[in-house]
């Protein structure tokens, strides 16, 4: 409270307009050690009882504030502890779910998606998963795995509900052809490597031969 506020409150007190609450507040202000001399008269007029009551109320209010602050502090600490626990438990449960879910997705029979179907029509006939289909079902929808982890719903339902772009069906012949091409490419690479090594060996031999010839000529000339 500023000196101006105190003076205004003193004027109010002198006019008999102050409430008992305001008089208690005024008692604290005018009893300060650095109060002007005129304020000391007001302090005497207000009396010790008013000051005592004011100090009583002030002490109780301060204790209440401390209690509230302590309560708020403990509440914040409790919320922080709960959040930390939730976070830690969440972190611990994710790897477990990943380990549990991935093999299930790979092992379950997958629905056959017909590539020629223009709209989202999925065959409900379940067939045993071929290696190619397994690759499609396991690699393409990473999102579906996370979704499945959250909702724990069957994989088949997820495939039907979500709009995930499906790869076209690959026939066994085409796969065999790709495999043959890959083997051919590997053979070509191996052949090229051997060719390079052979060239290097030939060059070394030529060099040795030239050195031998040069040495022989020198010997003959001597």
């Amino acid at each position, binding site marked *: 409270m500023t000196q101006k506020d105190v003076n205004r409150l003193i004027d109010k*007190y*002198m*006019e*008999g*307009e102050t*409430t*008992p609450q305001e*008089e208690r507040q005024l008692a604290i202000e005018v009893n300060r050690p650095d109060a002007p*001399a*005129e304020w*000391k*008269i*007001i302090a*005497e*007029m*207000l*009396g*010790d*009882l*008013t000051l*005592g*009551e004011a*100090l*009583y*109320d002030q*002490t*109780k209010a301060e204790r209440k504030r401390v209690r509230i602050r302590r309560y708020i502090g403990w509440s914040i600490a409790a919320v922080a502890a709960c959040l930390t626990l939730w976070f830690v438990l969440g972190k611990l449960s994710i790897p477990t779910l990943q380990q549990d879910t991935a093999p299930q997705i790979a092992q379950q029979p997958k629905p056959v998606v017909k590539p020629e179907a223009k709209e989202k029509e999925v065959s409900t006939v379940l067939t045993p998963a071929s290696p190619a289909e397994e690759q499609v079902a396991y690699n393409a929808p990473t999102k579906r795995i996370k979704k499945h982890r959250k909702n724990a719903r069957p994989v088949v339902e997820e495939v039907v509900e979500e709009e995930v772009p499906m790869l076209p069906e690959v026939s066994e012949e085409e796969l065999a052809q790709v495999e043959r091409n890959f083997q051919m490419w590997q053979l070509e690479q191996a052949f090229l490597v051997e060719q390079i090594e052979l060239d290097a060996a030939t060059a070394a031999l030529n060099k040795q031969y030239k050195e031998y010839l040069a040495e022989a000529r020198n010997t003959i000339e001597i």
Partner: protein
Amino acid sequence: MDRTAFEQTAARLRPLILRIGRDFFGSADDAEDVAQETLLQLWRYCQQLDESRNIEALAVRVAKNCCVNMKRRQHLTLVRETDGMGETNPSPHLSPHEEVEREEGLKALDEAIGQLQPRERQLFEMRQQNGLSTEEIAQQTGIPKASVQSMVAMARKKVFNEMKRRMNL
């Protein structure tokens, strides 16, 4: 108020005073001390007062004062024990010079109040001692609220000017 009347009043006020003490100290023993001291001070007051006064309001104020004074004493005793000093001065928070000033101030206040008209004096003391609001005084005395306010204002101005004159300010 005679001794019998005070004993009856004290029995009625005791639970209220104990509650104030317990609220402040949180201890039944300290609350008992507050009740003892409050009733002793009230007895001193009541020998000077008539039965028409609101003794309950006065008891609440005196009890709160006792709480604050006891707390202050406990704190000072603790400080003195920590400093290795005995308790020698009953009011150690005031220096001798301040004690003299305080005595003079109280004397000036008593004399200034003594110069008030009886009605003004009654209303002034109801505000100062009992801590009653203007509305409560109006209810108890039957005087209109505006009149109570103007009479209290008049009394305060008279007391202030008289004290100022006596204290050479």
